[in-house]
C-alpha cells in the first residue's frame, strides 16, 4: 500500500510545488470522518469521500499553507477583514492560518482539489504507451477508430426550382430512361447542382449532411445494381444506383498512430486517477456520518 501512496505524493510534489518537502511517517493510514446530508445518495457520498481524501492529502502535503494561490487569497481575505491593519502580507497570512481560515474557505478548497486532481492524472515516463501497447489498443478498441463504410453510386438529379410543376412528369420519364440504360452510365442526364457528380463514393453520413436523411437512407440500404427513386429532398428528386460498397474498417496503426496515442493517453490518465484514488481509499479509514 505504501508504494502507490508514495508514488502519488512524489508526483504531486514534483508536479505542483518544488517548495513542498514530502514527509512520510510510517504509521497506519489517516482516519477521517466525512459528513454528508441525511438524504445524500450513494453518489453524493462517494463524491464527498473522494474530495475529503484529496483535501486531506493536499493538507498533509502542506499545500493549504504553501500554495501561492491559497497564500494570496488568504491575504486578500485578511485585508478585507482588517482593512486598516499595518501588518505585512506574511503576518496576515500567518494569522489567517492561525484562525484556520484555509480549512473553510471555498476558494482554497477548490484550489486544493484542482491541484490534487492534476496530480492524480499525471502520466510518468514509464507509463507512456509503447508501439506494441498502441497496436493492442487499436485492435481492442476498433470501434473508436473505425471508419464508416462507403458506397459508390451513380446519381441523377431533377431540380424542383427549375422544373416546377413538370417535376413529377419529368421524374416518371427519367425513371423509364434510366431503366433503359442497362449498365451504361447516366451521362448527360438530369440537372446540375453544385458538388453533384454523376458518380461518387460517399458515406451515408455525408449524404445525410448534403441532401437529407431520405436520400442517405436509400443509398445506405446498398441495393447494388438497380436504379432507385425518385427520392425527395429540399432540392428536388433524385435517382441513385449503388455500384459497390466498402465495409467499415479500422485503419492500421501507421496511418492513425497519433489518433490512437492521444486516445490511449486519455485512458491512461483515467486509469491513473482510478488506481491512485483506489490506493488512497484503501489506505484511509473513513467514517461517514449522516446529518441528523
Amino acid at each position: 500500500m505504501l508504494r502507490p501512496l508514495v508514488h502519488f505524493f512524489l508526483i504531486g510534489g514534483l508536479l505542483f510545488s518544488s517548495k513542498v518537502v514530502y514527509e512520510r511517517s510510517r504509521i497506519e493510514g489517516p482516519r477521517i470522518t466525512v459528513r454528508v446530508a441525511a438524504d445524500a445518495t450513494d453518489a453524493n457520498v462517494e463524491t464527498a469521500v473522494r474530495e475529503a481524501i484529496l483535501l486531506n492529502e493536499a493538507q498533509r502535503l502542506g499545500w493549504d499553507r504553501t500554495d501561492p494561490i491559497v497564500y494570496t487569497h488568504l491575504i486578500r481575505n485578511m485585508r478585507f477583514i482588517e482593512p486598516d491593519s499595518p501588518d505585512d502580507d506574511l503576518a496576515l497570512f500567518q494569522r489567517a492560518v492561525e484562525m484556520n481560515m484555509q480549512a473553510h474557505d471555498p476558494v482554497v478548497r477548490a484550489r486544493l482539489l484542482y491541484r490534487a486532481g492534476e496530480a492524480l492524472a499525471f502520466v510518468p515516463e514509464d507509463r507512456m504507451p509503447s508501439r506494441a501497447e498502441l497496436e493492442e489498443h487499436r485492435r481492442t478498441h476498433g470501434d473508436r477508430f473505425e471508419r464508416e463504410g462507403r458506397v459508390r453510386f451513380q446519381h441523377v438529379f431533377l431540380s424542383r426550382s427549375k422544373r416546377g410543376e413538370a417535376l413529377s412528369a419529368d421524374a416518371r420519364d427519367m425513371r423509364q430512361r434510366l431503366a433503359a440504360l442497362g449498365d451504361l452510365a447516366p451521362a448527360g442526364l438530369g440537372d446540375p447542382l453544385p458538388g453533384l457528380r454523376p458518380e461518387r463514393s460517399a458515406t451515408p453520413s455525408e449524404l445525410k449532411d448534403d441532401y437529407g436523411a431520405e436520400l442517405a437512407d436509400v443509398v445506405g440500404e446498398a441495393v447494388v445494381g438497380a436504379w432507385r427513386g425518385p427520392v425527395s429532398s429540399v432540392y428536388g428528386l433524385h435517382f441513385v444506383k449503388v455500384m459497390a460498397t466498402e465495409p467499415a474498417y479500422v485503419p492500421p496503426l501507421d496511418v492513425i498512430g497519433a489518433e490512437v496515442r492521444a486516445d490511449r493517453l486519455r485512458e491512461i490518465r483515467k486509469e491513473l486517477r482510478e488506481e491512485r484514488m483506489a490506493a488512497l481509499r484503501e489506505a484511509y479509514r473513513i467514517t461517514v456520518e449522516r446529518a441528523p
Partner: protein
Amino acid sequence: MPRLLSSAPWLFTLALTIVGCSDSEGVSGTVDEFGRCADFDPLRQVFWGDTHIHTELSFDANMQGTRTSADDAYAFARGETIPLQPYDEDGDPTRMATMDRPLDFVMLSDHAEFLGTLKVCNDPSAPGYDAEQCVDYRAAQQFGATPEFVRDVFVRINGLLNLPPEDATYPALCGPGSAYCLEAGMDVWGGIVDAAESAYDRTDSCGFTSFPGYEWSGNPDGRNLHRNVMFKNETVTDLPYGYFDVPYPEELWERLIGECIDADNGCDVLTIPHNSNLSDGVYFENRMANREPLTPEYAELRNAMEPVIEIYQHKGASECLPGAATADELCGFEVIPFSNLATTNLERITPPDPKGFLRYAYGEGMRFEASLGTNPFQYGITAATDTHISAPGFVAEDDFKGHGGAGQPNRFLPPPEGFPDVEYLSPGGLTAVWAEENARDAIFSALRRKETFGTSGPRMAVRMFGGWDYPSDLCDAPDLVAQADAAGVPMGGTLAPQPGSSSPLFVVSAMQDSTSAPLQRIQIVKGWLDGDEYQVQVFEVAGDANNGASADLDTCELQGEGFGDLCGVWQDPDFDPRHRAYYYARVLENPSCRWTTRQCSAAEYDCANWDYAACVQHKQDFLPSDFTCDCCDPAAGLNPAFCEGVDCSDPGLLSEDEERCCHQVEPVIQERAWTSPIWYQPPS
C-alpha cells in the same frame, strides 16, 4: 533586427518535438499524398470549415472561463458534445454544446502572444509563476472572483496588445528577455501541433482535416490588425510569432517566409486577415511599418502571403457599410456599430469607418495595382466563427450560446435567462473551399488560389466561373462545371483580356443548406476602376428579390416560397475592356429570425411596462425574467414602440436609453454566401 532574435538567441537552439507520436517508437503519421482519399474529384467538391477558433489556450477565452482544450475543439468539430462555461462551484459545467453536423476541416487559432504566459502562470515549476500578474491571473480564475476583478486583470495583461508597435512587449512576468514565456510558448506550440496531428484523418476516408495555426493579435490603440497564421502541415516554425515578437505585419510575413516558405522542408504558410471592420479604417491604409506609402515590393509580399480574408465572423461583417460609396441595401448585415476592437471591450462608441470594409479594399487594391503593378488586397473570401469557447463551426442562430471574445465575461452571465452574448455579436460563419479531396494539400491549395467562399452560417454551396464564351443555357447542362472550368476561371481567378470578345460572362450556381431556409436570389457585385475612381454596382442574376418571403417575429416560422437551387448566366452589360474590375457573387436566403429574436420568441417577454434604466440598474434582480430586460432593450431591435419617434440624426439630444435605438440590430436577417471575386485585368 527583430527583437526576438536579439533578446533570446539561445531559444533557437532548443529542439522542438512537434511530430505526433514522438514518444511511441515507430509510429509515424506523415503520409499525406495528394489523391489518397477515397472520394477524390478532379473537378473539386465543397468542404466546410472554420479557421478561427480559440480554446483555453487563448488568454481572453481563458479569462472568460473557457476550460476546453484543443482536443475538445476537434471533438466538437467532429460532432461530439463539449462542456461550456460558466462552471459552478464544484467545477462542473452549467452548459453543454453539440453541433448538428460535423465540419470537414478546422484550424485552431489561439492568440500567440499569451500562450507562454498562460503556461508560466499555471505551472508552479516555471520561473515567473509567482509574479504578481500570475498571482492575479490565478485569483481571477477562482469561482468567487468578481466580474470587476476579472475584467481588471484581463485589461492589465491583454491590454499590452493595444500598445503601439514600438512599445510592444511581453508581460513583465515573462522575465528578462521574455525568456520564460518564449520557452513556455514553444512548449505550448508543440502541443498545438501535436493536437492537430492527432485530429487529422490520414486514412483514405479523409473524414477530417486539421491545420496547425495561431493568431497574430496586434491591435495598437485598439485598432484591430489581427491575422490568423495557417500552416499547411505539421512542418511549422519553431515559435508562433505574435505581436510581441514581430509587431508589424511585414515583419510577420518576412519571418514566415524566411523560416517556413524558404526553408525547403515542406513548410508552407499563409495569413488570413480579419475584422478589418474594427480597425478604425486603417487595415487597408497606404502606409507601411516605416510610415512610408506602399511599395511594389510590399504589394507583392501582401498579395503572396494573404490570399484570402475573413469577410464575416462573430464580431461582425466586413463586406460593406450602408450608405458608403454605393447604394446597396444589403450592406447592413451584421454590421458592428463601432469602429475598433477596444470599443467592444470598453463600450466606447465610435461609428464604423467605411475604410475598414472590403469594398474599400477591393477598390484601393485596383488602384494600387494600376500604380504598383500588384494588387495588395486581392483577397479571396472566407468566413469563420472566432469562437472563444472551443466550438468551431457552431453557427446555428437557433442554438447560439455566445462565443465570448472581446473580453466579455461570459462566465458571469447566468444561463439560460438573458442573452448569452452582447446583442450586436452573432454566431459567425463558415469557410467553404472547392478542393479535390478533404486533405491538407488540397484544402490549402484551394485557399491559395482563392477558390473559396464564406457564408454567414448556413451551408449553401455556391459555384462561380467567369469566361468569354459561355453558352446562355449553361445552367441546363448536366456537365456545367466541366464546361465552365474548361472555358473560364473559377472564383478567385483572374480573367485575362480576350481580343474580339464583347464582354465577360459569369455563371453562378447555388444550392440551399438542406436544413436552413430556401434561397431567395443570386446577385453579382461588380466593382471597377475608371481612371482613378472606383465604382460599384449590384446586379440581380437569379431568383426573385420580391418573393414576399419573411419570418414571423412571434414564432420565427419561415413564411413564403423560395428556391432549393438557383443558377444564372450573366453578362456584364457595361463592360469596358480598359477598366480593371472584380465580380463576386452574393447568394441570399429567404429572411429568417436573428438569434436574438429566436431566443426572445422562445421566451415570454412583455415590453409594455418596461423600464430600461431600472432594468440596467437592477439587472441582478431581474432574474429569472431577464429576457424582459434583454429582449426589450432597444438595441435588440424587438421594442419598436420604445424607439418610435426617436431621431438618431442628432444623438446629442437623445437620452442614454433612446440612443440605444440608434444601435439596434435587425430582428430578421438574410443569411448569405459571398464568393471570392473573379478579377479582370486589362491589357497592360
